């Protein structure tokens, strides 16, 4: 019955409703104009390229000659492309090696900086934040000299302590550590500053109550600080995930477009760049981009699940 009512009433009702909607929209035309630049730019430089890359992924094209439709060939190649899969794992590995120490040290530094009556707090904050202002290109050039296999500064330190030098740039594991260390160095201070602000927003009464109850510093840290800091920690985890999926400059400058020995430093974005812009495989580059998109979607989904869980 209600269906019938709806069916008969729909036409008239809707003109009325949409009529007023259009009037409302028209009335606010200036506002739409104000917010429009983002949507226009996104449509041209965001949405359209993404759709276009879907089209390109079915083509074979060197960017100069004619495009050639190849169906699913690029995707077929992608699935059996060991370097592509390697790039995904490398990216995840580097992300883990960088995010965990980075967030851990950031928490510790923030905790220390939050100590009562600490003098020179601002100086410390500036000193810790400074690496973040440095360009990645510069960081990679400088760190390249620290991690040199034979003449690097770190191997000098190791050998002067009687230890074996490490072939940083050759080893499957240490190359990733070298790349991750640049990220850690550049972003720890940034995250520490954010944590510090989070800590400062925790009411001191809570700490005092804990102290009266006889809780130790470690206990307070795990029982009060960490739980109350949770949203801030989540924010930093999400930002470092987005950043971590996009790592490019560090390996590119450190070991070149090929990602170093056995492509151990090859990341997804570096692979995309290498395939598309140094080998001119534009079609295949687009297929790689879609592979990347799937990986990020899965990752974001997991992230989202983690964020959702505690609230239920």
């Amino acid at each position, binding site marked *: 019955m209600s269906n019938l009512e709806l069916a008969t009433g729909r036409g008239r009702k809707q003109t009325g409703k949409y009529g007023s909607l259009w009037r409302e929209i028209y009335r606010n035309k200036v506002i739409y104009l104000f917010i429009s630049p*983002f949507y226009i730019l996104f449509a041209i430089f965001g949405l*359209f390229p993404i759709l276009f890359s879907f089209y390109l992924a079915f083509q074979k094209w060197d960017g100069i000659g004619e495009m050639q439709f190849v169906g699913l060939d690029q995707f077929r190649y992608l699935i059996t492309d060991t370097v592509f899969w390697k790039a995904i794992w490398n990216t995840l590995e580097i992300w883990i090696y960088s995010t965990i120490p980075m967030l851990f040290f950031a928490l510790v530094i923030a905790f220390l900086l939050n100590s009562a009556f600490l003098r020179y707090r601002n100086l410390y904050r500036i000193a810790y934040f400074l690496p973040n202002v440095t360009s990645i290109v510069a960081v990679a050039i400088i760190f390249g000299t620290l991690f040199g296999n034979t003449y690097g500064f770190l191997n000098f330190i190791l050998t002067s302590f009687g230890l074996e030098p490490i072939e940083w740039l050759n080893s499957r594991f240490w190359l990733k550590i070298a790349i991750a260390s640049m990220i850690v160095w550049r972003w720890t201070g940034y995250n520490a500053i*954010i944590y510090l602000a989070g800590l400062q927003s925790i009411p001191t009464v809570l700490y005092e109550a804990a102290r009266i109850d006889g809780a130790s510093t470690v206990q307070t840290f795990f029982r009060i600080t960490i739980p109350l800091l949770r949203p801030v920690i989540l924010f930093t985890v999400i930002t470092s995930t987005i950043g971590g999926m996009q790592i490019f400059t560090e390996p590119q400058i450190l070991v070149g477009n090929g990602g170093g020995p056995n492509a151990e430093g090859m990341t997804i974005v570096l692979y995309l760049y290498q395939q598309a812009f140094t080998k001119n495989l534009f079609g295949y580059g687009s297929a790689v981009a879609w592979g990347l998109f799937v990986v990020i979607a899965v990752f974001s989904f997991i992230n989202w699940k983690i964020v959702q869980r505690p609230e239920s």
Partner: protein
Amino acid sequence: MIGKHAVVKKLILHLALLIGVAVSMFPFYWLTVMATSTTSDIYKFPPKVTFGTELMTNIQNVLANIDFFGSFVNTVFVSTASTLLTLFFCSLAGFSFAKFDFPGKKVLFVLLLATMMIPGQLSLVPSFIIMQKLGWVGTYKSLIIPGMASAFGIFWMRQYAQGSIHDDLINAGRIDGCNHFRLFWNVALPILRPALAFLGIFTFIGSWNDYLWPLIILNNPEKYTLQITLSQLNGIYNTDYAMVMAGTLMATLPLIVMFLLVSRQFISDIAAGAIKD
């Protein structure tokens, strides 16, 4: 006794923090050591860890081999233009989202937030092709225009505007006969200044340090930005490493100086931004 204990505790605290500072600062120190040495000294093993006297020679070599000031000016131009345009479009849109009601507002805003999750690198290839079709390859338009209304910037300005601009002010402005744009320009902008300062510096630093996109899109050395020039310097002249290091120092220093000038406000703004989320 208690006083002594507190002093020891404080000392340990500072010591721990200073170790962290040392790690933060070491690469800058190391860079300066290398930039002031000769290439042979850099290659020495064990390495030389004190400042040398070759800084001026190295700088002269940089200037002789690459157009450092040219790329410096290019970078300043691109960063400034990006920053001004971003500030304008983001504050305008952020203010509109914060203070006006209009049909579809929620959907549009969620859409805007969702775009933040899409990594830009995904569309590297087609973006290049679009720039090629527009004839923008090798021009600064391709660096400045696509990002000038960033989702993050709009989000940030909206958050700030929501908390800081009272509806009374808007209404008063309306009664005075201000149109929308005047409300924005005369009423909102002055209040938004702290948020603008943060977004401005954030955009400026990001644009200054941008690497991947300019690497793809700039093909004329006369138009290179500092990051591209720096990676070129590193790639072309690696037999003169002292010079590469001097160039790195020269490219890094301006931004550090600028940051130190504005650092206090900027750092607290970053923190505030994260907490608001």
